[in-house]
């Protein structure tokens, strides 16, 4: 039961914390928790690591960071950790994930670069390739051209699938 209340709370938060004097009380009213219960639970979820950060989630594109490239690399399994650690030394690398290869998509390391424009991102990528010694590595560069949806990562209690 505690878990499901937390889930309700995070689903509410995924809609965005209300911008009003007592936002945690406003959220609490919707799910049957007091203001202090909401705050306690959020503290707990943050401490436990369920919430990695709590704060303003910016829209990079509106703020002038119009270019965002996902670069996927084919790295030998044994070297993935070492390569990823090297990539993370660069502050323009905002995310770095290992994902499975598929027969039609044989790339296993994904990293993201956010920059003000495509040229900046291309230069940053060139720097990354040079300094991490990646010139011989198979890769694909995927610039984003449009964002169709960006919202909080919580499935809702009555999911669209169940409604269908």
């Amino acid at each position: 039961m505690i878990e499901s209340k937390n889930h309700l709370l995070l689903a509410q938060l995924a809609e965005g914390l209300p911008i009003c004097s007592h936002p945690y009380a406003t959220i609490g009213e919707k799910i049957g928790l007091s203001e202090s219960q909401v705050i306690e639970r959020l503290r707990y979820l943050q401490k436990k690591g369920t919430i990695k950060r709590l704060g303003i989630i910016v829209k990079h594109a509106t703020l002038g960071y119009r270019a965002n490239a996902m670069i996927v690399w084919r790295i030998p399994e044994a070297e993935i950790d070492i390569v990823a650690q090297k990539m993370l030394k660069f502050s323009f690398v905002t995310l770095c994930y290992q994902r499975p290869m598929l027969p039609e998509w044989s790339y296993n390391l994904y990293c993201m670069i956010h920059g003000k424009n495509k040229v900046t991102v291309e230069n940053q990528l060139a720097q990354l390739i040079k300094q991490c010694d990646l010139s011989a590595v198979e890769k694909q560069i995927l610039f984003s051209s449009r964002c169709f949806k960006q919202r909080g990562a919580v499935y809702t209690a009555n999911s669209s699938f169940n409604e269908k």
Partner: protein
Amino acid sequence: MVLELSDLQKKLLNDFQRDFPLTPTPYANIANQLGVSENDVIDALNELDEKQCISRIGAIIPPNQLGVSTLAAMSVPQDEIEHVAAQINQYTEVNHNYEREHEVNLWFVLIASHSSHLDKTIASIENETGYRVLRFPLIKEFFIDLSFRLDLAND
């Protein structure tokens, strides 16, 4: 387009991406820190929201902390991409959906309560759109998502 942001808005954008106050009146606390009124902060945030500078004030939750999630991708003909993206966006399980410049051009993130829910959602998307969904679940995350330092100088 030049975005006109006040100093207060720039401060809010850069300094409050993490450690948002968990107090009864967080906006008043922020206002105190910055030497302005609670209303100033509320107005500034509302304007940032209206101008689409912020997605929301909320929580970043690492993949698979709640339910199960996966990155997914599809190859969709260019003239159908808007239609297919709209179909995919109808699923509440989908929380990010981007077009990328590649033959594999539609990339989205799905989150579901458990793996059979995820399987059913993907099957339903494939059925509805007629395109195959490639699945790339996370194996390992190498980065701790620190807040992104924005250079908001006018250039």
